[in-house]
């Protein structure tokens, strides 16, 4: 057994009141398993990953694990924008690795990321593809028993995806994987089992095909419901207009927003 979550519940306080993400979930991940978590946006997948990786506590219930678990590997979380990739990588390598391994970890990440001189430029200027390369490369350079991946393969080009696929299958011989991705094809390639997280309940599927079918079915229902139900043509047009205004103002705001989030 690698990770076992018993009866975990999580809710957040929002302005609209208490919002329950999930209640009394039970998850068991055995060593050597590769598991995909499917569910639509906002279903609580990332929250579940954070709890399983141990960086966030559930409101109730316990997470039992005796293995070295990675942080939820995403595009930029955990990186300091004003530091370079090299400095960020050194920091994480120092914390997780032995001190004599730090240099070799940095070198491995540099080789994997393959972003040239940018490796020594501040992280905040990177594109999401470059961030994904560094973040993914870093997690692969450290020896974990369980790797937790949050949407990491969604960014980046074909070259990066091929490299990532290769690195994952190499690691799968010894380690477990837990992945969230909307790249369904990629999941099919890497995972043996899948969980679908929907309305706070987790369903386990032994075949990833079935899970993807269930997931796309619910998505299909949701989409139909959102777009068509009880809306007249003018209402749809009005909504589109509002959306386009919002999008425009978002693009105008974007540079500042980016600055602030760094």
């Amino acid at each position, binding site marked *: 057994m690698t990770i076992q979550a018993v009866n975990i519940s999580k809710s957040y306080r*929002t302005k609209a009141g208490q919002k329950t993400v999930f209640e009394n979930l039970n998850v068991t991940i055995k060593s050597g398993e590769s598991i995909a978590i499917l569910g639509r946006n906002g279903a609580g997948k990332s929250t579940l990953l954070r709890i399983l990786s141990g960086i966030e506590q559930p409101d109730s219930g316990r997470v039992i694990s005796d293995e070295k678990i990675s*942080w939820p590997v995403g595009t930029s979380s955990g990186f300091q924008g004003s530091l370079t990739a090299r400095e960020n990588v050194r920091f994480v390598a*120092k914390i997780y690795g032995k001190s004599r391994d730090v240099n070799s970890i940095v070198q491995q990440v540099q080789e994997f990321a393959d972003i040239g001189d940018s490796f020594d430029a501040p992280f905040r200027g990177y594109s999401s593809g470059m961030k994904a390369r560094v973040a993914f490369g870093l997690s692969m350079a450290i020896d974990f028993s369980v790797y937790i991946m949050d949407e990491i393969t969604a960014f980046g080009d074909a070259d990066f995806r091929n490299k990532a696929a290769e690195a994952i299958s190499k690691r799968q011989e010894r380690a477990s994987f837990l992945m969230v991705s909307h790249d369904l094809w990629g999941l099919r390639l890497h995972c043996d089992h899948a969980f679908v997280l929907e309305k706070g309940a987790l369903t386990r599927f032994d075949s990833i095909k079935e899970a993807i079918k269930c997931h796309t079915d619910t998505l299909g229902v949701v989409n139909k419901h959102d777009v068509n139900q009880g809306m007249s043509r003018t209402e749809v047009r009005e909504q589109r207009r509002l959306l386009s205004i919002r999008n425009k103002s978002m693009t105008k705001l974007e540079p500042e927003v980016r600055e602030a989030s760094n």
Partner: protein
Amino acid sequence: MNRFANSFRLQLKVISSLIFRELRTRSGGLKLGIFAVLIEPLLVVAFFLLIFGIIKQHAAVGGLNTILFLLVGVINATLAIQSSIRSIRALDANSALFFYRPVKPIDTAIARTLLEAMIYATCFLIAWGFTCIYLDNLILDDPLALILMYLLNMLLSLSLSILSMMATRILPWSKSIIPALSRPLYLSAGVFFSAAYIPANWRPFVIWNPILHITEFSRHALYAGYPIADVSASYAIVTTLVLFGLSLALYSSASAAVSQPEG
């Protein structure tokens, strides 16, 4: 025992990495940035010295050179108060760090306090050294007491920064209260006055402040003739230990709330 040693070693590793990271961030990655980090506290001393020089023309307070008198005050008070104010924003600024499970909020508080303490100690040594050279006189009567007082002040700073870190997380509105509360703490810390020069009936208004006791004792350690009135080292030690115990108790009972992102 082995397990304890291992987690202790891990924590040391995390803290030292955090210090390097913080130093890198502050110096802006420049080689000269290290001077920028040091120059800020020195400018504060210079500023006070200028004001002090304008107000009164005394060459010495209680027999201690004015530069050193102010230096001890500024260094001690700024270390203790700056760290608690920085901690208000520390949790948000460091939220990226808590992605890595070995990094606990208390590590960031310890790393920050150690780094500040090293910066201010370096500033002190530079300014003290130049003053001694300028006066052609080594002004240091009790080095051990000076070091002990500085260590005590580090512990006090750590306690204050853990307390303010916990306060801002448990009661978010205290973010705006803490800077206001730190004002009287700074003003009564004896940065620009000596407790002995305050009339005895006004002394209770400043004597509650442990930083004042630490500052006055440090001055006394520099120059044994410096008068210490109503100042007791045991008061500073007991207050610091009580605050330290309080901060640890609060941290261990509510640390789960601290490491979580604001929802």
